């Protein structure tokens, strides 16, 4: 992976995947047929999953396919079939021109800000500090570098399995394990809060859709 990263191949793959994502999203907001729009939405989700892989987020790419393509797209298709409002369903309201202006302004502002801000570059840090590069993308031996304290060594051993010779793979090479470790360590409170959110959403959806005989005629 390190040999490919930064080469022309990733650049070409990035622009192809981005073009697919943007084109599919434009189709979603311009198509009249709402069912076809939902299918193009699934295509856009898959292209975004490809972007995640190029950005060293393999775990999130899989989650994106499972949750967005597998669950949300199917749910939207089900809703379209249930509602039966398909022909002409994707028509615009009278705010079309205002909406296009506002969206163009917000997009231009975001692009302006991102091209005029200074960020601390991770690649530069990796180039100047081989320890960091090894800990992020290569393999490294925590005990030999002496760059981490004992307590942190124990913590990270939970997330990243240590091989027989004492070496570990970097967190971007094994991001699934590292994310799992973060879930039960640094992000345990948001993790529990999100479980409550999902439970509340499930109960709320069931309560909304329950048909009451005395009300429905």
């Amino acid at each position, binding site marked *: 992976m390190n040999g490919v990263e930064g080469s022309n191949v990733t650049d070409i793959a990035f622009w192809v995947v981005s073009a697919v*994502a943007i084109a599919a999203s434009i189709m979603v*907001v311009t198509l009249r047929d709402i069912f076809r729009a939902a299918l193009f939405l699934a295509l856009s989700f898959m292209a975004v999953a490809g972007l995640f892989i190029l950005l060293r*987020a393999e775990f999130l790419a899989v989650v994106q396919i499972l949750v967005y393509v597998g669950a*949300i797209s199917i749910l*939207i298709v089900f809703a379209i079939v249930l509602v039966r409002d398909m022909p002409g369903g994707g028509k615009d309201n009278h705010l079309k021109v205002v909406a296009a202006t*506002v969206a163009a302004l917000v997009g231009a502002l975001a692009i302006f800000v991102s091209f005029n801000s200074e960020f601390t570059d991770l690649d530069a840090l990796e180039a100047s500090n081989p320890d960091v590069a090894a800990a*992020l993308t290569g393999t490294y031996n925590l005990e030999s570098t002496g760059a981490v304290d004992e307590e942190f060594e124990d913590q990270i051993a939970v997330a990243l399995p240590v091989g027989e010779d004492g070496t570990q793979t970097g967190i971007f090479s094994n991001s699934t394990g590292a994310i799992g470790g973060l879930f039960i360590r640094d992000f345990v409170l948001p993790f529990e809060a*999100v479980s409550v959110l999902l439970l509340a959403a499930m109960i709320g959806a069931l309560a909304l859709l329950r048909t009451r005989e005395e009300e429905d005629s």
Partner: protein
Amino acid sequence: MTLENVLLVSAVLFAIGLYGALAKSNAIMVLMSIEIMFNAVNIAAIAFSRFTVPAGLTDSPVTVTQQAVQRALTGQMLSVFVITAAAAEVALGLALVIVVYRRRDTVDVTDLTEMSG
């Protein structure tokens, strides 16, 4: 593939989603456009996780590896929670759409003006 290029794609996707959310009259189309905006935010968060480190990290050379390892995945964690919130949002949103369709026989948001006084 630089940070600016990824943020450019993210901003374009966000603008497309914003246009759809504001200009569409079908409630399901509005929900789909909001999902495009969620995706754009996720791309930005993961791009920051991939390309940047927090400012001031390099000032403490003793623990710079440790801090880099601890903080490099923060953007990806944010995006995991965004995906979870998006899933909950779309489940509740589609339930609301179906309830509205049962009672009013339409999902056109421009027709739902009961609360405008």
